[in-house]
């Protein structure tokens, strides 16, 4: 799905989290929002997912105005920073949650839900952990379960907030490839937030460098490396 962000701004009370920014995300792209903390990257992601509403500006999904669309109607698969798995539910129930929450008319049958959850557990290469609770999983496993839960609703896009932030360096490398594979397999338009420039450069097709609520540069990793648009970008990517 093609995402168009049109002069979107966000203020929280007196503080401006996001100055008017515009961004076009081609369908099927894997995009990184890269910047230090406080740069507005998470706010932009949450605006896309419908968890915040913009103070001004519009969001278009496939050319249709989606600015007023509720979080439920956006159908964005969202992976939270600390994964936000439902701690009182098993992994199976976590992944099935979105399917069971559908209105009766569109809710799959029990057998169908089970089939889909098992398929997703296969996709994240953890076929045998359905009966476990989140507290019994490692950090990397939790991240993958969160990804499977987000994919279960057959999302129109995938949004990930620092998906590798809570993991140690080795697991992080492995899961980067995992995300790349899942993206290539599903073809979903994917946006992830990171403060790690290596991660952004290695994984993304398109990198959006942000600072102080503004977009500093949009470009392919190689282009940004070769021609940093501003002094900030130059220092940030070489840091």
């Amino acid at each position, binding site marked *: 799905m093609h995402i168009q962000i049109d002069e979107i701004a966000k203020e929280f009370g007196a503080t401006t989290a996001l100055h008017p920014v515009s961004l076009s995300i081609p369908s099927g792209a894997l995009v990184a929002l890269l910047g230090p903390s406080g740069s507005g990257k998470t706010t932009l992601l949450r605006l896309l997912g419908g968890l915040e509403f913009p103070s001004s500006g519009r969001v278009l999904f496939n050319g249709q105005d989606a600015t007023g669309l509720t979080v*439920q109607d956006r159908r964005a698969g969202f992976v939270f920073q600390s994964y936000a798995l439902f701690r009182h539910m098993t992994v199976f129930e976590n992944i099935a949650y979105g399917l069971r929450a559908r209105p009766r008319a569109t809710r799959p049958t029990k057998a169908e839900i089970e089939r889909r959850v098992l398929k997703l557990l296969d996709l994240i290469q953890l076929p045998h952990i359905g009966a476990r*609770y989140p507290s019994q999983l490692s950090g990397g496993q939790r991240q993958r379960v969160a990804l499977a839960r987000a994919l279960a609703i057959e999302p129109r896009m995938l949004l990930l907030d620092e998906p590798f932030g809570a993991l140690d360096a080795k697991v992080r490398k492995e899961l980067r490839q995992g995300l790349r594979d899942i993206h290539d397999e599903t073809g979903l338009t994917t946006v992830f937030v990171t403060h790690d420039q290596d991660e952004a450069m290695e994984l993304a097709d398109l990198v959006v460098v942000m600072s102080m609520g503004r977009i500093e540069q949009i470009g392919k990793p190689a282009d940004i490396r070769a021609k940093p648009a501003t002094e900030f970008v130059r220092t940030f990517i070489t840091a």
Partner: protein
Amino acid sequence: MSDAALNLHRSAGRPARPFRRPTEEAAPARIVLIAVAVGGLMLLVGAPLVIVFVEALARGWAAAVASLQSRDAMAAIRLTLLITAIAVPMNAVFGIAAAWFITKFDFRGKAFLITLIDLPFSVSPVVAGLCIVLLFGANSAMGAWLVANGFPIVFAVPGIVLATVFVTFPFVARELIPVMIEQGRSEEEAALTLGASGWRVFLTVTLPNIRWALLYGTLLCTARAMGEFGAVAVVSGKIRGQTATMPITIEMFYNEYLSVAAFSMAALLTGFALFTLMLKTVLELRHADQLAATRRH
């Protein structure tokens, strides 16, 4: 350093003392602390508890039971159970609503609201009762109108419910607020992105996550609601057989030197309280694994 040097160093030291963790006290200090704790507990909690039951059964089991079957005693027991059955669910709902409001939204005056929730703890129940009498009594405009329309609040059941709700209001909210702050909003947000409606999120995510705190709060609230004396004494008018709750009836019996009746009812009230505590313990034991699983990841 070589092994030999290490050994030398060790043997040169003083004879090994039994190992003790740095956070542990030495044996004498430990014994004194435990003795103080156990002694205090026995003196302040254990002894009165025993006395209540001893006095109740001073003239035998049959006399105790008979005293509880008098018309006034039965009326008091029914009234207390009724008040509790109304006040506790009300405070559970109020408590959830208040905790939800405070923890899931940012707004001005939040600290003030939290203080306000604590107010019943700091205000004397008698004062609370007087406020209700002033506000709803027959001398106030509202009270007069209510009495004229056949719905008296003071010296009637609604007043007792109001007083009890006021006094026990903080229990549920105070149990929930820290738990809900600690859990944050992300699980609810996750459920929303998965397409769940607000109500469904509350039922399937929020409520299960707070159920233990809610249970503790409700049980404490129940125990307190059954035992409330001061505020109820003011608003109820202590009409025997009509507005006298169990604690008030106990006082009446005691003042009339009906010690078996007074202590039998006290024993029953204590029994109710012990029952709620037992319920809590049993539930904790039974769901220990779930409890562990639902703690922070």
